[in-house]
């Protein structure tokens, strides 16, 4: 048993933390609400430098051209992104997009992974639909075979990073009914393809997404990623990895929220003394710190089981997301409350951090959905 970071990961953590701290201003500018001139949703220069630093490569295994890719590599990177409140779409381009291509792609398709690692290409996963909620198998978008061509029709909902993406990975149903795990295919589609249209918008916690309309999008069979109808397992695996990244990001954000709150309690005066001397607030702060350690352990458990069996992965990912969801909500709400009015203002750092924490729950399933998954997995 060993809970220390390896030297490599420690170096990665140090250099990434330093880089993000040094670029706080640029990061902040790109993360704020209503920054509607930036339809990229993030800072392109920062992205290039992240690639240069090897941060994207750390998310891929050596086999896939990277130099990491294990659970603890993901958590090392994303905890730092969370601490910085960064909205740069590493989850979408690297973990989801890059991960799926690395897992399923042909040699030709896999060249994109190299470009992802180099920071030259952006990706998005166009999978969720208006009626799918958090159900990974719920795909109503259809594929019809017309001669050699495949015709996709449907709508994809809240596709994060769609506008910046060079390619979308689009899921569609080849056989079966809406909720079957069998029959889901994945396709690698250039974003500017005819028959594919986007309606982009900013997101509550920063970054951008789009509704994607597939109106008779015509593809050749070569656009398929992996075997026909066999996309579900890879989607599940990719979402597990994304969820581990997400809890680590939330953990980083929770660290900052509790740090900011602690500092505020020590400095802010009311009724002639620092408010951190009021015992009721002290005890609530203590509770936050306890839950922060719980969250840290849950992230470690999930990351440490990301190479385990599918059942163990599912169990620990659901457990971590449920716990981090609960602890995160508590930390976000209590941090705001303990600050008072100042935390309600957009310009104060905590406002953005709290939004990152809370809104993370809305990707891949909220705490209740995770609890259901945990219960199912425990009973299985």
């Amino acid at each position, binding site marked *: 048993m060993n809970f220390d970071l390896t030297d490599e990961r420690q170096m990665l953590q140090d250099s990434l933390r330093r880089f993000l701290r040094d670029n706080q201003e640029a990061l902040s500018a790109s993360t704020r*609400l*209503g920054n509607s001139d930036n339809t990229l949703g993030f800072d392109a220069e920062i992205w290039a430098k992240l690639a240069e630093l090897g941060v994207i490569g750390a998310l891929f295994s050596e086999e896939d051209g990277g130099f990491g890719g294990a659970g603890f590599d993901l958590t090392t990177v994303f905890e730092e992104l969370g601490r910085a409140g960064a909205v740069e779409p590493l989850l979408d381009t690297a973990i989801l997009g890059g991960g799926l291509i690395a897992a399923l792609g042909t040699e030709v398709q896999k060249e994109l992974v190299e470009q992802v690692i180099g920071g030259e290409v952006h990706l998005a996963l166009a999978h*969720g639909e*208006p*009626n799918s*909620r*958090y*159900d990974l198998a719920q795909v109503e978008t259809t594929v019809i075979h017309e001669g050699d061509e495949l015709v996709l029709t449907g709508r994809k*909902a*809240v596709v994060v990073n769609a506008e910046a993406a060079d390619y979308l990975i689009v899921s569609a149903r080849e056989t079966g009914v809406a*909720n079957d795990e069998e029959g889901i295919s994945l396709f690698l589609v250039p974003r500017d393809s005819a028959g594919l249209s986007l309606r982009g*918008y*900013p*997101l*509550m*916690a920063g970054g951008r*997404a789009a*509704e994607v309309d597939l109106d008779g999008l015509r593809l050749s069979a070569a656009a398929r990623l992996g075997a026909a109808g066999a996309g579900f397992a890879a989607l599940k695996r990719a979402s597990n990895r994304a969820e581990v990244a997400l809890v680590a990001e939330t953990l980083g954000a929770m660290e900052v929220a509790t740090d900011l709150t602690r500092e505020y309690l020590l400095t802010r*005066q*009311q*009724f002639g003394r620092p408010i951190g001397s*009021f015992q*009721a*607030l002290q005890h609530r702060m203590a509770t936050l710190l306890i839950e922060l350690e719980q969250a840290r352990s849950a992230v470690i458990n999930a990351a440490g089981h990301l190479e385990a069996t599918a059942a163990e992965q599912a169990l620990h990912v659901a457990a971590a997301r449920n716990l981090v969801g609960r602890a995160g*909500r508590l930390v976000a*709400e209590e941090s*705001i*409350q303990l600050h*008072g*009015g100042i*935390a*309600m*203002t*957009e*310009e104060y750092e905590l*406002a*953005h951090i*709290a*939004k990152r924490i*809370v*809104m993370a729950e*809305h*990707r891949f399933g*909220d705490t*209740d*959905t995770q*609890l*259901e998954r945990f219960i199912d997995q425990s009973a299985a």
Partner: protein
Amino acid sequence: MDLNYSVEEQAFRAEVQEFLSQKLPKEMSDAIRVGRELGKEGHEKWHAILNEQGWLAPNWPKEFGGCEWNAVQRHIFEEECCRAHAPRIVPFGLAMLAPVLQKFGSKEQQDHYLPRILSGEDWWCQGYSEPGAGSDLASLKTRAVREGDHYVVNGQKTWTTLGQHANWIFCLVRTDPDAKQQSGISFLLIDMDTPGIEVRPIILLDGTHEVNEVWFTDVKVPVENLVGEENKGWTYAKYLLTHERTNIAGVGFSRAGLDAVKRMAGSQMHRGKPLSENPHFAARVARAEIDLMAMSTTNLRIISRAASGQAPGVESSMLKVKGTEIRQEINDLARRAAGAYAMPFVSEALEGGNEPAMGPEGSAATAPQYFNNRKLSIFGGSNEIQKNIIAKVKLGGGA
């Protein structure tokens, strides 16, 4: 013990319902239902509709043009307005300043300002909070120095709600810097067009411009704009705060919010069934509803006592805490119900522009409202202050 409304009260409720079904514009209730903002004009329009009906000032005495309704009637009115998705009335002139003027203002002040509040000619905002003062109002620093027939005001107010629309502000200012704490404070009425006043927006974490900083630099205010006596402002402020506490429980808002959650959960599919049938989600909704049913009765108990002349004491603080907890929980349920569609932030859609919202009806407003309503437990005397008050009354201990 009798939980039923009297025949007269039922008749009153029917009258309110009839009015709302006739006079509340559909585009207005539609906007409120899905959480869109009304803007200044919308507020002014609804204000005028209520004024025409004579129902703009439920708590004013009849002599000033008010309804002089009792607490139960006011409760019924508020409940029906919420149910019908009527806009909220901006309270600063009508519900906060007016009672102070009616009790402590001069005849001239009453005759001048009260009709202008009803007509909508004046939009008032509140200058109470200051940076660094928070819930600790007595430590305020804005100075007013008497120079001849004017006061000269210097300082800064903050969290001034809708100050960007206001042409008048009522302020607490320090007139005697040597007096202890709450003494030495006066209550001034200030024209926002006076030179030296600057209003700076504060953007809240949901992107809204709802509150402001108001800066005063050598602002000249005629002495006749003083309410009551100099250095007695704290008395008037406390009186005002008591009035601010009406409808503190927010039962109507919670009821409307819970209905919206149920509508959305009924339309969203989760694992092949409406989300409303999912036991985990249903349990959250049920607990909130059960809490609300009880708090609604607590509210009625207090209202019924108020209607029979007993003053609410520590119960107001209890209602404030529980009421905000329930409202915030309902906001949380709403964002959960919206699923991934809680994520988009389409400000045009929220502001009533042409851009349609994504996702199910009302989903666009769920996350902004969740974050915006964190304020409920912070502003108006934070829930911590309310608990201090409860402890002080019940345990006699200090903070």
